[in-house]
């Protein structure tokens, strides 16, 4: 008999980017009052994990690295139906780039394996909305020696007993159908499923659930130079807002009617792009 399926979903708590404002003078992010959310891409990973568990049985653990306030996102994941939540939090992780982040997460995943049983599948979102790098998933896979499956649009089949998985992966110009051996790390493509509404009972249980909190020492990190800024090969030297073009946009005066404005706009466009009119005409002629 094989062990029940253990799936870990890595999530990140991010500022709701739609509401991020930049201070016009100092060029710093105005964090005050910006609400945080679970990285939206991670929800597709979480939902896919929950579906697999519902179908095949097993346990879904969610893991989040971040400040103590990231417990909110873990609790939210529990309300959707995750079984267990682990928060990895330590001031030594501050300023981690993707290499240092994947190191800390890989150490935490190994600790999860020791305490709760080794995961067969690790899910992440395809990227975060604040960092947008898509590098942490591959980093974790490489460090743990898991087979790496990125941009997965569909999971065709999982055979936990046989230790195999078959997936569809979004590639250039089409979809790759890949078969590989468990354990795997999957980064889930967006819009591949729809997050469920958590049941009332699940939400109530989530409110009472214990979130496991670990720091660097609890996951066995002894070499702190691999963490945070010191463990990060990349160095951010400058943060800035791009200036306006030297020349501001030439404004097209509004006509008496939208039609008049449209005509003025077209004249201005053709004046800037000689040859465009002929090109448009050729395209139009070719298509009729």
């Amino acid at each position, binding site marked *: 008999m094989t062990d029940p399926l253990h799936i870990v979903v890595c999530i990140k708590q991010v500022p709701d980017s739609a509401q991020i404002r930049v201070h016009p003078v100092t060029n710093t992010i105005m964090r005050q009052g910006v609400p945080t959310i679970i990285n939206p891409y991670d929800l597709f990973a979480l939902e896919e994990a929950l579906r697999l568990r519902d179908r095949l049985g097993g346990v879904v653990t969610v893991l989040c690295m971040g400040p103590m306030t990231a417990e909110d996102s873990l609790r939210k994941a529990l309300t959707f139906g995750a079984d267990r939540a682990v928060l990895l939090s330590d001031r030594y992780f501050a300023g981690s780039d*993707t290499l240092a982040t994947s190191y800390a997460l890989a150490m935490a995943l190994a600790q999860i394996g020791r305490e709760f049983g080794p995961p067969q599948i690790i899910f992440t979102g395809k990227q975060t909305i604040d960092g947008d790098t898509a590098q942490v998933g*591959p980093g974790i896979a490489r460090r743990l020696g898991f087979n790496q499956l990125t941009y997965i649009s569909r999971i065709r089949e999982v055979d936990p007993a046989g230790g195999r998985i078959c997936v569809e992966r979004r590639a250039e110009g089409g979809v790759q159908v890949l078969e590989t051996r468990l354990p795997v790390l999957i980064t889930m493509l967006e819009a591949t499923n729809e997050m469920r509404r958590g049941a009332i009972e699940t939400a109530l249980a989530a409110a009472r659930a214990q979130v496991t909190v670990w720091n660097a020492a609890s996951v066995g990190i002894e070499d702190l130079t691999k963490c945070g800024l010191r463990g990060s090969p990349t160095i951010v030297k*400058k943060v800035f807002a791009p200036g306006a073009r030297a020349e501001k946009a030439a404004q097209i005066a509004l006509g008496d009617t939208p039609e008049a404005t449209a005509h003025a706009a077209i004249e201005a466009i053709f004046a800037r792009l000689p040859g465009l009119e002929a090109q448009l005409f050729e395209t139009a002629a070719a298509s009729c």
Partner: protein
Amino acid sequence: MADAPKPAAPSASGRASTKKELPEHFRAYKHVWVAVEIEHGAVHPVSFELLGEGRKLADKRGVELAAVVMGDARADLDVAATHCFEYGADVVYIAQDPALAHYRNETACDVLTHLVNTYKPEILLLGATNLGRDLAGAVATTLQTGLTADCTELAIDEEGSLAATRPTFGGSLLCTIFTLNYRPQMATVRPRVLPMPPRQEGRGGRIITYSPAIDETRVITKVLDFIADRDSDKAQLPYADIVVAGGLGLRSAENFQLVKALADVLGGEYGGSRPLVQKGWITADRQIGQTGKTIRPRLYIAAGISGAIQHRVGVEGADVIVAINTDPQAPIFDFAHLGIVADAVTLLPALTEAFAARLRVNRLAS
């Protein structure tokens, strides 16, 4: 680079590596490399764009530019190598093996890592495509070096380090990132962010062949099938000549049809800003901006888009940007060439009709 970087005050633990102190064993690293993306025999254009930029970096450093191509069919690889020379490469490393017929992370990562460890490039560039990001993340972790994703600008600083600029904080600011003390310095760049360099026919170079002798029975991941997209499914945004896009200023999904109608009359492609994807008005493959598609059309019309940095970096390569927005202070007017302070919902149908009428007149005249 990752997670919202904190450029502010140094932490208590100290920022050990903000100064350049390149360890001795990295000093042998030299030359600029581009890992070329080949799918189904053809080179992805982003690889040529990277060679164009790589050429400039290599010239500035006084080093060679090399391309790495991987595949199984020698004929395809030789054609790819010829193109790489014509777009600026001095050297092409050809990795040939039946197991490299289709891209797989496992095999590609092993081959590229081996070549880097053997020939020691100081800079390694890849396209920020699904393939390039899948490979770059694995290779950078294996080599334990820095990787900067989705750069919008690459430069060599006065000390010879790669300065990689990219949007940060969800695209609200730009930042410049260095990998001072690790080699190679890795970066990915999205298709169309860099211009296509001119092709120099007849330009040649050296080929170095590597036969990795991969034992397929030991490769764990198998490609069972490839289901090609139907052409009609595909948004051709990155390489379109004319693009019309809409933003939240359109107010409703129904009004977005006005964008499609104008694109249709112009024979162009349509797209939208990031919030429209989140609202479900458009699919993700039609998103224009840092996390969507980067475009370089001759004509770009942005209707009801405010012009956040994350959008700006995706469209700045357009020859002419026309912005329609009700807010005269909208940032899009900072980088558009032509601006119209108007409600796009009213103006778009008038523009569509005016273009259509103009084309009808032309047809009668011819």
